[in-house]
């Protein structure tokens, strides 16, 4: 198993994916240590990443990310 982090970019943020992928973007685990570094990896401006979930739990920019984790990043969404 490769040591990768999975990144989902939703609500239009998929435009920051090199492959234009919404789900299942892969980042080598040794290239990023924190949520902030994941944003930098995809060059997503901070203000666009309004909700960040790591394995479904809300996370902050400084939270550690480890291989095997799934990071989901959303812009401002609403409705209901």
């Amino acid at each position, binding site marked *: 198993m490769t040591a990768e982090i999975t990144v*989902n970019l*939703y*609500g239009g943020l998929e435009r920051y994916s090199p492959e234009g992928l919404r789900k299942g973007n892969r980042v080598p685990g040794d290239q990023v240590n924190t949520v902030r570094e994941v944003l930098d990896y995809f060059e997503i401006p901070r203000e666009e990443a309004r909700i960040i979930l790591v394995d479904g739990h809300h996370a902050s920019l400084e939270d550690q990310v480890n291989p095997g984790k799934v990071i989901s990043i959303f812009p*401002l*969404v609403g409705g209901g």
Partner: protein
Amino acid sequence: MPGWMGKILYIDLSSKEHQILESGEDFYHKFLGGRGLGARLLFKFLETPHTEPLSSRNTLVFSTGPLTATVVPTTGRMTLTTRSPLTGTIFDSNAGGYWGPALKGAGYDALVITGKAETLTRLEINENSIKFVNCPELSGWNNSRTWEHLDQKLPEYQHVYIGPAGENQVYFASVSVGKNRTLGRGGMGAVLGSKNLKAVSLKGSRQPGVADRKRTEKIKEKSLTWLENSPLTASRLEEMGTSMLVNLINEAGVLPTRNFQETQFAGADSISGESLRDRMEASSGSCFNCPIACARQIIGPEGEQAGPEYETIGLLGSNLGISDPELIAKFNQLCNELGLDTISTGSVIACLMELVDRGYFDYQISFASAEGLADLIEDIARRRGLGDRLARGSLRFAREAGHPELAMQVKGLDIPAFDPRGMKGQGLGYITSNRGACHLRANMLNIELLGLPERIDRFTEEGKAALLIQQQDLNAILDSLIVCKFTLFALAEGFYREMLEAVTGVSFPEKEFYAIGERIWNLEKIFNLAVGFQRCDDSLPLRFKVEGGSGPLAGEIVEEEKMLEDYYRIRGWNFSGIPVDETLSRLELREFKHYFLGSDINDS
């Protein structure tokens, strides 16, 4: 009386008589309009809260608010209040469109309808006349056909009307407002159906007075600027509609899946707003005086149709295990045509699927399969075969099948598409809502998932009661003004008070303003106490209290007793959930005390 028209139209369908009544300022200042006025008028005109919901004596109160038809954005809304056949509680629903402004245009703040017409009837109301028109030829007509007919016949009028489900008194039949807005949830369409009332058409050119035009204009400009500056209300709701929530709700593990047995769905992305946007050609639509334009129209096989909202995707999609967006759009369209609430339709079918899955009920149906579903939905609306039994809602059906715990509802109202195990405040909202499980009395989505205005721990029960109560009271005010809840994404709370003061010229000190919401909440509660609801009815289905969900919800359950205790205490209610004397006095509701004194509930 700026803001209000000061007149209420009362119609008795049995005698074909009507009266125009005037109400005092005090009445309006205490209950505003919309939902508050609806609750107050229901008490006034209903002989007793015990009135059977589908009897001729039940009463429909259509109402507008002091901001309706003014220049303030999103003020095209109207409310319908009655006793619900699905829940037995007091029930109100509000919708956008253009009918609310037309009611004021005809000269009325509210229209009260009671009695029962002999044959299928529609009403034509304008500033000068009220016409009762027999319309047996419209019997069984789908909604689009009915709308086209009315629009062609009376192009200057605005219409509310029911489809076959309403005529056949399905307990979760909706009422259509204009071409594509809906009064959903508690089966108000069935109440119109029980009265043989197919449609109410309105027109008029009157306008409510505005006390301070300059200030109102300023407020309009300011709120438009705010709505344009929030990315949500400026463009995101218009681009994707509410379906943009699907992926977030799924990743957060609160997306109802297979009758809430799971809370994440493998096919979520394919039914998400992003996928719908990619796959289906769409345009947006808006209500009276609204810049948000959240309504999505998609191009379906039979032309333009309403795109499925988030709730519909949850309940007719993931909760049935269905991941084909075209199927969901098709079922949505079918429900809209028949006049069925999509949440309850999805929920009662999911309940049937689980009963069958567990071997408790014999029928050919299974999760993830769309086979036979369109026919079943049609059968519900036409009350044919098994559809006739499902038409009385999930709780009654599951009870008859011997497994009431498999109906995902509170007080008979089906739980919307946010699983309470991952949003404890939302769970408390479901159990305390005066109309049963509902996300619109106080959606904790903003606070618990979106982090607006700031993020709090969604998994804890701690501190949720106080936050929820604040939201419930605020929403009662928004529902009474009436403005769209989506403005909350962009506007500060204090702004609503400013709007009210500018339009009416009445001063509402902050404390008094918020007390209006609390008063309305308590008045609705009194109705429910009067008809016998008790503390034990403020409870979620067993599943949420003993089984965890998927992903982040593994092992998560809702501990409702602790939250409920806090909630009753902060509300100023006793252990049984009855408002204590001090609360009634503070809210000027003492005159309603006799309604629940005779009920079976022990005062402790």
